[in-house]
């Protein structure tokens, strides 16, 4: 077995073992499955899902579903993933990996495999729950399924790389709320995931358009809505070319940043640093 194949297979062994941990610990499994989001989606859908958006006849529930699909991707990759990386750094998992031949590589393969599975499961959870509980539409044709597939693949790719970069920069898991959760919630508000993007002022639209979430949500909408609804989008079309372009640009940014940041963080990880952090932590809780 060559080195790459071995890293992949050992990384997948790690992923299987991490999944076993999830299965054994229902509270973590529960947070890994974004159940709270799905509940929120169902509540929102039940209350105002039937209202058409701005007299367009465009059902609001589809907008929510598309928004929550995009959010499911972002939450798994840009929130849960960096927090997991920071936690692993704090408890010495990364340092342990550093002392094992190709340990950091198999660790990352394992982590990413779990993240990808989390994305798939949570996206499916949103789509199926929405269809069952809210009668929301699934993609209606083979080409819509294909659209959903490439939008999600590109989104997941970009967001996972970004998540790795964020995780490498995150000082610790406790800083996750300020560093990641709040900005993500802000983006969620301005990116057309729950509030129609067309209602945002021009400046806000311009800001949101720099980030991937807006394009993810719009891309998913293009797979869920009937083609005719494209006229209600900001540009009057689904903008597939722009969507692919922006997401690809983020893939490139992530691919450049993530490996360097991860390598830098890994290099700085030593036993004495771990010890220092532990002392600080025990001082904080007043031991």
């Amino acid at each position, binding site marked *: 077995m060559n*080195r790459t194949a071995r890293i992949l*297979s*050992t990384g997948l*062994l*790690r992923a299987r*073992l991490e999944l*076993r*941990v999830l299965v*054994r*610990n229902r509270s*973590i499994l529960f947070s890994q499955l974004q159940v709270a989001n799905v509940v929120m989606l169902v509540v929102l859908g039940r209350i105002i899902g039937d209202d058409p958006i701005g007299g367009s006849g465009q059902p609001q529930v589809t907008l929510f579903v598309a928004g929550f699909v995009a959010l499911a991707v972002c939450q798994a990759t840009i929130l849960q993933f960096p927090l997991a990386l920071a936690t*692993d750094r704090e*408890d*010495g*998992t990364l*340092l*342990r990996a*550093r*002392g*094992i*031949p*190709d*340990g950091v590589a*198999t660790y990352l393969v394992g982590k990413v495999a779990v993240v990808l599975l989390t994305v798939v499961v949570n996206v499916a959870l949103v789509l199926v729950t929405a269809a069952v509980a809210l009668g929301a539409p699934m993609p209606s044709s083979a080409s819509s399924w294909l659209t959903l597939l490439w939008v999600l693949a590109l989104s997941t790719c970009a967001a996972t790389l970004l998540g790795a970069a964020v995780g490498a920069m995150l000082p610790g898991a406790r800083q996750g709320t300020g560093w990641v959760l709040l900005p993500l919630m802000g983006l969620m508000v301005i990116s057309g995931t729950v509030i129609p993007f067309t209602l945002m002022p021009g400046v806000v639209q311009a800001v949101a358009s720099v980030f991937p979430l807006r394009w993810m949500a719009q891309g998913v909408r293009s797979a869920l809505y009937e083609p005719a609804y494209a006229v209600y989008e900001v540009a009057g079309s689904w903008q597939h070319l722009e969507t692919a372009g922006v997401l690809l640009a983020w893939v490139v940014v992530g691919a450049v940043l993530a490996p360097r940041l991860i390598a830098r963080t890994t290099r700085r*990880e*030593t*036993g*004495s640093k*771990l*010890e220092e952090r*532990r002392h600080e932590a025990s001082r904080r809780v007043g031991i």
Partner: protein
Amino acid sequence: MSATSDGHVISVRDLTMAYGSTRVLEGIDLDVEEGGVTALLGPNGAGKTTTVEILEGFRRRSGGDVRVLGEDPARASRAWRSRVGIVMQSWQDHARWRVVELVRYAAAHYDHPVPAEEALEMMGLGDKAQATIGDLSGGQRRRLDVALGIVGRPELLFLDEPTAGFDPAARRSFHEVLGTLVDSGLTVLLTTHDLAEAERLSRRIVLLVGGQLVADGSAADLARSIDAPTTVRWREDGQVRTEKTVEPDALVHRLYATHGSALSGVEVRPPDLEDAYLEIVAREES
């Protein structure tokens, strides 16, 4: 087993380390031969951890030449990494994993690992294979760390405070296991504050104070080097008496001559590693 061409597993020349303007290591020279336990001792802040982290390839040095198993650890290859085992302090990772799962995962990185169950058996954790790591006691956790350190059949093992938190029985059995590993050709670099442990396990002790190597030799060499008095203790008319002397033989002769059969419980305790350590550290730090 393949050390460097000159037979040294570790070879350090003029190693220096500075964090900003703070100099931590002031030019260390150290050669460690293949096999056996070498203990690196010193007070906190002496530079032990920094030295070990440089040798482990975890930290970049400021200057000097370092060879570990023939390679520069700062540019360690995968092959090099698989010949080195590391047991550090303060690991709390993988708390929710099962013991055997983590050992099996670690073992999967090596070409000829010790089977996971066997590694656990060696460390007396055979019955804990299915336990959740976070539920282990401190001593069990440390033994797991050691099992993970040796699962890849390393040629060189870095051990940092391996028996901190062990009860005496666990410490004794750990020393026996380590003895077996060393008999099979393993080279160990031990850092510890437990001087009795260092004296018992190591054939060589290296003392680091203020970023410099200040003593190097067997525990007995070090003890002899300090000219400390020997403590003689005896019982005389039911009373325990002690006296410190640099000529213990003469004192004992005199005692027998004076008290004859009234004398009992004579103990002669020459200066040990602890005496030597305290003496040398105090001298160097003043």
